[in-house]
C-alpha cells in the first residue's frame, strides 16, 4: 500500500483524455489479444487476477485456498454463496435449506443441473464431496468435519448431522465447492492435485491458460445460462510490485479491480468519470489485541482506559487516508450489519476519546499519572505492539496509537517483524499487544466465536490462530452457545445483543477502525456491480463474492 506521490499529483492535474489515449495505445501495441482490446469487442469481462510472480501457477483445485487461481470460484459452484456484507444467501446448487432441529440441517438440491462435461449432477455428488473432505483432512480447510458427524442423501435432499448445535455453520457448508464424483473418485491424492482440466457446475469453464493470463468461457450447460452476461472472463496476472498494479488499474485495463488506491477520485474515477466507479465498504475490523494472560491487560479497567485514551478518528485517518470510519466496539461492522446492532448501546458502540475518563479507568486498575508517566505497582506501564512489517496501514495506526498512549503516560514500543514471525508470536501468546483483524465473515456468530470462544484459547506456547488474545469468559461462551443453537431470528438477535454488550463493556479486543475492501469498477461493458446503494456482497474478487457478482452482471 505504498503511496505514489507523483501519481497522485500528476494525475490530478493532467488531462484525463490524453492519459486515456496513452493507455489505449499501450494496449493495442501488444501483439496477441490483450485484455484492453478484446473487452471492447464483445462480452468480455476483464478482472484483475491473481498475483503471478513471476508467472501464474496453473491450479484449479477448489480445496487449496492459498494457491488456487481465483477463476476456480466461477468453475465450481457451491450449494449457496453467502454475502460477506450481511450473511444473506444466494442459491446455486441448492434451492434452499432448513434446520429440522438445531443439529440437523437439510439442503434441497437443485434438479436438472449438469456438469460441464455433460454428466448429470446429483445429490450423491454433494455427499461424495463432503466425504472426500473427511477422507482427506488436508482438503477440509473450513473444518467441516469438526462440526458435522455425518452426511447422507435421500431424494433431492442432503442431510447434515451436527455434533453440537451450530446453526450459523450452515454458511460454511453452503460455500463448500462441490466436485464431481465420476472424476474425483479416481484421483490419487486430491490435496496436491493441480486440476488443470476442471469440470464443474459453475457458469464458466476453463478456456485457456497462459503463464500471465487465463481465460474462462461461458458454460453452455450452466443451469441458468441465459442469465449470464459475459461470454468470456479474462484474468490477467498481477505484478509483484504494488505500484505497477496501481498504474495498471489507473490506466483502465480492468472492468473489476481490487486494489487500494490513494486519492481514488483523482487516480481512478476522474480518468473516466462516466464509467469508473469505486466502492470501499468496510470488510472487517482492525483492532489492538492485548494479551489477556498478562497483567495489566487482564484487568478490564485497564483495557477500558486504553480504549478511552485512543482517538479512533485520527487513527483511521492516518491508517487508511480517511476511507474508513472508526469502528463500533460492539464487533458489529457498520453499516453492513446494521440490522444486528443493539440499539440500546450509546453512539452505536463507537467509543470517543476521553482522556479524563481514561485516567479514571486507569486509577481503578491501580495506575495513576505522575509526572507524565502512568505509574502502577511495578513502575511505569509499558506496552510492545507487534505487527507485520508489510501491512503499512497497520503500521501507521500503531504509530498513532503509540503517540496517543504516550500522552496518558504509557511507554509504547513497536515490534515489526515479517508476517510469518508475527503470526508465530501472536499464535503462541508470547506477545504483549498486537494489531490484528477481527471478523469479516458477514455472520456475527462466526466473528464472535472465532475471536472470543475460550475453547480456542490454548495455553501460552501452544499455538492458536483464533482467540489468540486468549479471552476466557463463561458468560460469552454461554451466549455463543445460545446463538449457535437458536433458529428463530428473535432469539438470535437477543444472543447477539448480549455479545455486543460484553464486547462494549469488557473490551476483550480494543477495536479501532474498519479494514477496507477496495472495489474498483467500470460500467463500460457491464453493470450490476455491488455498491453503497446495492450492497449485496463485498467487492472482493478472490472468494465466492466473485461468483455472486459475476452472475448478477448485465451488459451495459
Amino acid at each position, binding site marked *: 500500500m505504498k503511496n505514489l506521490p507523483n501519481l497522485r499529483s*500528476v494525475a490530478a492535474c493532467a488531462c484525463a483524455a490524453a492519459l486515456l489515449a496513452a493507455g489505449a495505445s499501450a494496449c493495442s501495441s501488444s501483439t496477441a489479444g490483450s485484455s484492453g482490446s478484446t473487452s471492447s469487442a464483445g462480452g468480455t469481462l476483464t478482472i484483475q487476477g491473481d498475483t503471478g510472480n*513471476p508467472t501464474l*501457477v496453473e491450479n484449479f483445485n477448489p480445496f487449496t485456498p492459498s*494457491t488456487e487461481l481465483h477463476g476456480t470460484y466461477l468453475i465450481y459452484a457451491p450449494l449457496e454463496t453467502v454475502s460477506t456484507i450481511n450473511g444473506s444467501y444466494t442459491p446455486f446448487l441448492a434451492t434452499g435449506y432448513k434446520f429440522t432441529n438445531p443439529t440437523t440441517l437439510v439442503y434441497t438440491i437443485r434438479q436438472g443441473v449438469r456438469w460441464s462435461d455433460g454428466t448429470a449432477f446429483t445429490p450423491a455428488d454433494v455427499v461424495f464431496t463432503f466425504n472426500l473432505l473427511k477422507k482427506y483432512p488436508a482438503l477440509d480447510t473450513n473444518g467441516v468435519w469438526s462440526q458435522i458427524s455425518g452426511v447422507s442423501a435421500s431424494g433431492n435432499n442432503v442431510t447434515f448431522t451436527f455434533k453440537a448445535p451450530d446453526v450459523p455453520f450452515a454458511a460454511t457448508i453452503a460455500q463448500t465447492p462441490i466436485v464431481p464424483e465420476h472424476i474425483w473418485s479416481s484421483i490419487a491424492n486430491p490435496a496436491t492435485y493441480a486440476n488443470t482440466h476442471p469440470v464443474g457446475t459453475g457458469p464458466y469453464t476453463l478456456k485457456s491458460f497462459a*503463464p*500471465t493470463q487465463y481465460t474462462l468461457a461461458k458454460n453452455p450447460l450452466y443451469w441458468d445460462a441465459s442469465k449470464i452476461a459475459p461470454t468470456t472472463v479474462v484474468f490477467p496476472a498481477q505484478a509483484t510490485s504494488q505500484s505497477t498494479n496501481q498504474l495498471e488499474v*489507473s490506466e483502465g485495463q480492468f472492468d473489476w479491480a481490487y486494489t487500494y488506491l490513494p486519492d481514488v477520485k483523482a487516480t481512478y474515477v476522474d480518468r473516466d468519470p462516466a464509467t469508473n466507479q469505486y466502492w470501499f465498504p468496510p470488510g*472487517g475490523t482492525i483492532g489492538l489485541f492485548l494479551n489477556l494472560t498478562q497483567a495489566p491487560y487482564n484487568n478490564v479497567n485497564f483495557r477500558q482506559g486504553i480504549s478511552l485514551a485512543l482517538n479512533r478518528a485520527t487513527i483511521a485517518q492516518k491508517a487508511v487516508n480517511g476511507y474508513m470510519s472508526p469502528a463500533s466496539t460492539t464487533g458489529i461492522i457498520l453499516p453492513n450489519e446494521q440490522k444486528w446492532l443493539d440499539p440500546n448501546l450509546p453512539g452505536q458502540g463507537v467509543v470517543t476519546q476521553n482522556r479524563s475518563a481514561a485516567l479514571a479507568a486507569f486509577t481503578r486498575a491501580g495506575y495513576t499519572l505522575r509526572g507524565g508517566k502512568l505509574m502502577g505497582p511495578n513502575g511505569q506501564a509499558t506496552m510492545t505492539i507487534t505487527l507485520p512489517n508489510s501491512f503499512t496501514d497497520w503500521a501507521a495506526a500503531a504509530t498513532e496509537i503509540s503517540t496517543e498512549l504516550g500522552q496518558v503516560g504509557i511507554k509504547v514500543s513497536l515490534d515489526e517483524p515479517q508476517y510469518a514471525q508475527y503470526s508465530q508470536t501472536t499464535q503462541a501468546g508470547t506477545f504483549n499487544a498486537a494489531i490484528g483483524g477481527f471478523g469479516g465473515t458477514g455472520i456475527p456468530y462466526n466473528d464472535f466465536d472465532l475471536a472470543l470462544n475460550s475453547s480456542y484459547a490454548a495455553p501460552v506456547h501452544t499455538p492458536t490462530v483464533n482467540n489468540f488474545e486468549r479471552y476466557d469468559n463463561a458468560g460469552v461462551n454461554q451466549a455463543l452457545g445460545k446463538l449457535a443453537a437458536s433458529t428463530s431470528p428473535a432469539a438470535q438477535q437477543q444472543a447477539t445483543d448480549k455479545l455486543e454488550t460484553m464486547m462494549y463493556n469488557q473490551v476483550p479486543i480494543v477495536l479501532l477502525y474498519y479494514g477496507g475492501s477496495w472495489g474498483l469498477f467500470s460500467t463500460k461493458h457491464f453493470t450490476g456491480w455491488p455498491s453503497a446503494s446495492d450492497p449485496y456482497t463485498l467487492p472482493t474478487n478472490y472468494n465466492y463474492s466473485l461468483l455472486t457478482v459475476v452472475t448478477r452482471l448485465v451488459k451495459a
Partner: protein
Amino acid sequence: MRYILRKVTLFIITLWAAITLNFILPRLMPGSPVDAALGKLASAGVPITNAEKAAVEAQLGAPHTSIFVQYADYLRNIATLRFGTSFSFPNQTVAETIGKALPWTVALVGTTTVFAFVVGTLLGVYAGWHRGKFGDSSVTVGATFFGAFPPFWLGLLLLYWLSFKYGWFPIKGGYSPGVTPNWSLSFLGDALDHSVLPGLTLAITTLSGWVFGMRNNMINTLGEDYVTFAEANGLRSRTVALLYAARNALLPNVTSFGLMLGAVVGGSVLVEGIYSYPGVGNLLYLAVTNHDYPLMQALLLVFTLSMLVAIFVVDLLYVRLDPRVRSTS
C-alpha cells in the same frame, strides 16, 4: 600445475561451505511456510481459522523430520541434482521452475551487463585520455549523476513516464499477457519490446562503475614509463591511448567483468519486481516471501555455483593473462 591443484581444492571447500550456508540461511528466517501461506490470505482480509491452518499444513507437507535428516537429504539431492517440489509451484519440479525463469534473466541481465561493460569502458578510456578536459568532466559528472540513481527508483520513473504517461512501452511482464513463450519472430519482438525498460534501468545504473574503474586505471597507466616512451617515439595518440594505455588498464576491469558475469544469474530482484519480469530475481523474492525452502535452496545454489565457477575461470585465465602469477607459483 600446483597452482591449479590448489585452486581446485579451494574451489571444492568453498563449494561445500556455500552449499551448507544455503541450507542454513533460509531456515534461520523466523516463521514457517504455513505461516507465510496463511499470511497471504490474511493480508487479503480473509479470516483465518485453526482448521484452515491444519489443512494448509497437511497440503504443504511441511517437514517434520529433524534438521540433520533434512541436511542429509539435501546433500543427497544435490548430488543427484534433484531439488524436490517447491511449495509455491506444486505441479512442477524446482529444476523446471528455475529453468523457465533463468533464460529471461540471463538474456536481460547478461545483455545489459555486456552493454554496460563495453560502453562504460570505452567512455572510461575516453575520459582518462582527455583527463582534466571538458570531455572528461562531462563523462564523469554524467556517470556520477546516473550512477547515483537507485535502480528501483529509476525503474519507477521510467515506468511512470515512458509506459503510463506516453504508452511507448508495455507496463509489465516479459511478454504480452495470454501468450505462451515460443520461438516465433513475433514473440521475440514482443519480448524485446518488454525488455527495453528493465534493460535501460539496469544499464544506466551500472554504467558508472565501469566508467570510473576504467578512467582511473587509464590515468595510472598513462603515468607509466612505457607510455611516455611510446609518446616520445612519436606514435599517433590514438595508438598510444588504445594499444599501450587502454590494453594494460583493461586487466582489472576484465576481472570484475568476469565476476559480474557470475552474478548475472542472480538477476536483479528490485528491477525485475517493478517490471514483473519473469526472471529469477522475481522467483527468489517469491521463494523468500513463501518460505519456500526447496526453491530458495536451489536458487541460492545456482547463484553461488555460477559465482564460484566465474571466480575459478578468472583465476585460471590469470595464469595466461598475467605472467607474474605463473612465476610465483
